[in-house]
């Protein structure tokens, strides 16, 4: 059976070869099981994490900003519930119908509709479109009533910044609004916490304190599918509201300042002369920061931007003015300190002096006759101060002025737009203008004209430091955490002065006293420039100095015409200034007032101080009683 034999041999070959691959199979299967084991058992953790990373996505919600409160705890920048309207495109049955319905219900413009359609095409179908960021309550109700007809529409309640005092605090707080890309990239904290729709501080303290106010995001964890669509919510992690910031300002005083300025261009600052607390800081005219929250309308923006009184400028911090006669206390003090004059030194004022071939006029054409320091200050005699400045020299005057805070930023880093102003000296002119100092310039510097430029807050600080007896204070707008009784603060101020010469701004305390008395007489004695604005009640009695800063040179012709203020074009009118402190006995507060193109200091600015001091001093007790109610770490 050859054939059978061949069949059997063939069977043997097949069987033998089968065993070889059978063995190979076992090895390969073992290999696969080993691979399975390594993936599923050894590396299980790694792949579980990867799988979770795949399926779990976090959604950050906008953080809730911290409140800003005034000294008494009143919220001046808070948060408000707002009603919004979202559309979720994938739930909408008929988009065009929905849009026409919404258009009639909410009176949306064609432009807005166009925008929504554009957004719809850009976003994924499950991403919501914000139709309205800030629905009025009545619109919100309307939408809720018609909800059955508006498939795919979602009324949403959310939280937005709110400034309850509107324009009163604009120049201190600034405002929040949607950031642009640069602004997001500029701040790491914002970058990390940013979510669409979030607003950040654009100006003022809202901007400077961004990192304290911002708060942390609430986080929602969702399970998502491979296309990023949310399937279900796994977790909601609450965010923390930003820190509460307490300011030193008093809303009542701040409001009163606004009222007294009455939309005239100008500024009022009020400061505690011992603590440096800024009680009020009002720049006028102001504007409503709430308008910026949801994007300001073009009309509103044009109105603000084109206003000739420049509401966008914070005049208290970045308005630069010639101090005018309000510089005279510093000139007097400098002269006394440098022993150039004694209180009994007298100058004869004839209304003008001729020096170096130029005529320098006193404001009083007829002249003041023989005046001493006290009288010169009281009646603001320019001739006297020309003479004193000439004797003193600008460099020595500059030293005193800078000691008292002129030419330096007052609040430092808190406001990025704050200007440092300028108090000139010979070196400054040489370096910056490349020309030698001219003696005539010393004279006009002595009456606060010329190169000198000050901010209203600098004048306020200067006054405060004269009022407190010549001690350096550090102005502040944010309350810190160690409240001390006023006596202790005074004691500490003097104590510190013993150890550090920098804190003491004078050589002889009598000189300060002389200047204080001169300021007192200027307000409270007959012929004083602000005598009309005095308060006799010692509780409110204050000392001050008027100032009238020329904005342009007065020509001979104009001098002869002696025009009334109403007859001069607004732009050419003098700035009216007033600095003061009170109560005269046991002083506590200093202020500076400036009304742009207000005419004379005594007529326009000083009466405001009279109104204000009553309020400030009345509120002093309340202020003293106010305890620190909360720990704030900044």
């Amino acid at each position: 059976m050859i054939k059978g034999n061949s069949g059997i041999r063939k069977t043997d070959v097949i069987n033998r070869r089968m065993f070889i691959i059978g063995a190979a199979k076992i090895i390969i299967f073992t290999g696969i099981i080993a691979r399975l084991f390594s993936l599923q058992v050894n590396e299980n953790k790694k792949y579980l994490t990867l799988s979770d990373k795949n399926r779990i996505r976090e959604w950050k919600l906008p953080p809730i900003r911290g409140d800003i409160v005034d000294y008494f705890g009143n919220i001046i920048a808070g948060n408000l519930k707002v009603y919004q309207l979202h559309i979720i495109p994938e739930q909408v049955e008929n988009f065009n119908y929905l849009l026409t319905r919404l258009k009639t219900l909410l009176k949306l413009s064609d432009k807005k509709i166009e925008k929504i359609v554009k957004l719809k095409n850009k976003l994924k179908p499950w991403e919501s479109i914000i139709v309205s960021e800030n629905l009025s309550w009545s619109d919100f109700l309307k939408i809720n009533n018609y909800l059955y007809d508006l498939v795919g529409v979602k009324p949403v309640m959310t939280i937005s910044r709110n400034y309850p005092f509107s324009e009163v605090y604009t120049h201190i707080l600034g405002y929040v609004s949607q950031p642009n890309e640069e602004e997001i990239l500029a701040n790491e904290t914002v970058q990390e916490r940013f979510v669409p729709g979030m607003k950040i501080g654009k100006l003022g303290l809202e901007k400077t304190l961004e990192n304290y106010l911002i708060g942390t995001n609430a986080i929602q964890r969702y399970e998502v599918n491979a296309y990023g669509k949310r399937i279900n919510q796994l977790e909601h992690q609450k965010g923390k509201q930003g820190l509460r910031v307490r300011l030193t300002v008093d809303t009542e005083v701040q409001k009163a300042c606004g009222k007294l300025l009455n939309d005239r261009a100008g500024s009022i600052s009020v400061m505690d002369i011992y603590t440096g607390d800024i009680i009020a800081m009002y720049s006028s005219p102001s504007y409503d920061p709430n308008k910026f929250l949801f994007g300001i309308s073009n009309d509103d923006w044009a109105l603000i931007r084109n206003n000739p009184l420049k509401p966008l400028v914070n005049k208290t911090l970045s308005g630069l003015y010639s101090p005018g006669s309000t510089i005279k206390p510093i000139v007097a003090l400098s002269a006394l300190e440098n022993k150039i004059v004694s209180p009994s030194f007298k100058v004869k004022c004839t209304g003008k002096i001729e020096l170096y071939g130029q005529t320098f006029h006193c404001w009083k054409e007829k002249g003041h006759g023989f005046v001493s320091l006290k009288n010169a200050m009281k009646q603001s005699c320019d001739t006297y101060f020309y003479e004193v400045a000439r004797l003193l020299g600008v460099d020595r005057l500059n030293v005193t002025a800078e000691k008292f805070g002129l030419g330096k930023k007052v609040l430092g880093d808190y406001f990025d737009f704050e200007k440092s102003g300028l108090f000139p000296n010979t070196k400054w002119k040489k370096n910056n203008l490349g020309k030698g100092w001219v003696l005539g310039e010393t004279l006009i510097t002595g009456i606060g004209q010329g190169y000198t430029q000050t901010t209203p807050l600098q004048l306020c600080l200067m006054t405060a430091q004269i009022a407190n007896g010549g001690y350096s204070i550090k102005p502040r707008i944010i309350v810190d955490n160690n409240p001390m009784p006023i006596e202790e603060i005074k004691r500490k101020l003097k104590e510190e002065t013993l150890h550090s010469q920098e804190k003491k701004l004078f050589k002889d305390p009598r000189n300060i006293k002389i200047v204080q008395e001169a300021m007192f007489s200027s307000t409270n004695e007959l012929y004083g420039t602000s005598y009309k604005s005095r308060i006799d009640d010692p509780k409110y009695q204050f000392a001050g100095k008027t100032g009238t800063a020329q904005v342009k040179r007065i020509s001979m012709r104009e001098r002869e015409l002696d025009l009334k203020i109403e007859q001069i074009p607004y732009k050419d009118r003098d700035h009216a200034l007033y600095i003061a402190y009170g109560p005269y006995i046991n002083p506590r507060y200093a202020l500076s007032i400036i009304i742009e193109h207000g005419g004379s200091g005594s007529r326009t600015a000083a009466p405001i101080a009279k109104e204000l001091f009553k309020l400030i001093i009345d509120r002093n007790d309340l202020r003293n009683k106010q305890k620190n109610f909360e720990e704030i770490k900044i």
Partner: protein
Amino acid sequence: MFQHDRLNNELTFWQKVKELDYILLTSVLLLSILSLFVMYSTDGGEILFHTKSHFSKIIFFFPLMIFIAFFNIKWWHKLSYLFYFAVILLLIYVSFFGIMSSGSRRWMDLYLFNLQPSELMKIAIILCLAKYYHRIKIENVNSITSIMTVVTIILIPIIMVLSQPDLGTSILIAASGLIVLWLGGVKIKYFIYSFIVFLISLPFVISFLKPYQKLRILTFLDPDRDPLGAGYQIIQSKIAIGSGGLDGKGFLKGTQSYLDFLPEKHTDFIFTLFSEEFGFIGSVALLILYSIIIIRILRIGAISRSNFSRLFCFGFAFAIFIYIVVNLSMVLGLLPIVGSPLPIMSYGGSSMLATMIGFGIVLSAKINHKQMIA
């Protein structure tokens, strides 16, 4: 000679029923039922299109398997060449009139499902070569004519399938054919020579590959080079399997598949979903089930009197093994991604049809294991 009579006479129906291999039958049934559950999971825990369609295919093809088993193995021996040529004709038909889908022309439209003739070729080539080696004298196996013949038999369908293009199936056809050559007694040196020739020609072959095929090989070598593009499938597959852990995430709880991170989860990546939900233990159990099937087929081959049955059973068992290994290696990131379904488990009519036909012939061999074939 009673026995002789019995061998030459047809068995009665009941004798045939008695002779069926019930362990194999049960395992295949079990696998089918399991595949239905997995399909139900890919549909997201609902009876949707894939589950229904898969179920209808099982309902058609499982009885077909038993139907095939009841024909004498002699008939299948006789029809082997014809079957091979029929499938070649189908391949020709498809290359002209086939349905174009995602860049390749592989399918023909039958009412019930789209038939992919290349899948049938996986069985046809084993049948054809088994018959060839059954009939050839052992002395002639290594003759030049014989070698040329079998190489031609293998190359024709491979070239046709490659041109569809379908790399995965053509590799599987080649593997199925080569294993029968090996079992038939072709000398080892020929395998070694051809392997060397293959290695030398590899760079040329690669230069002929389509860009997407090259990309797949590159991706296999380093899946992280393009995690959202070409490497996405393999990365997601490994994540799914790895996150399954020892005992899995539970039935219908595979997040990777449920949330659509898994690609091709109904077909080539079905094991990934299974492994994610049932873990290492489930996966090993599935492999054991496959092993039982393979061992049963091998056993049937071993007890068969005819070399045709023997060659077919061994060849088919090995083919099943190769399908499983290629599919698993692919989803486990051990091999580049080539389209290759997991037998019975994967969604796909042609693959199931071919596999069921194979099982049917194996069962026929079992029933007629004492049958001699001239």
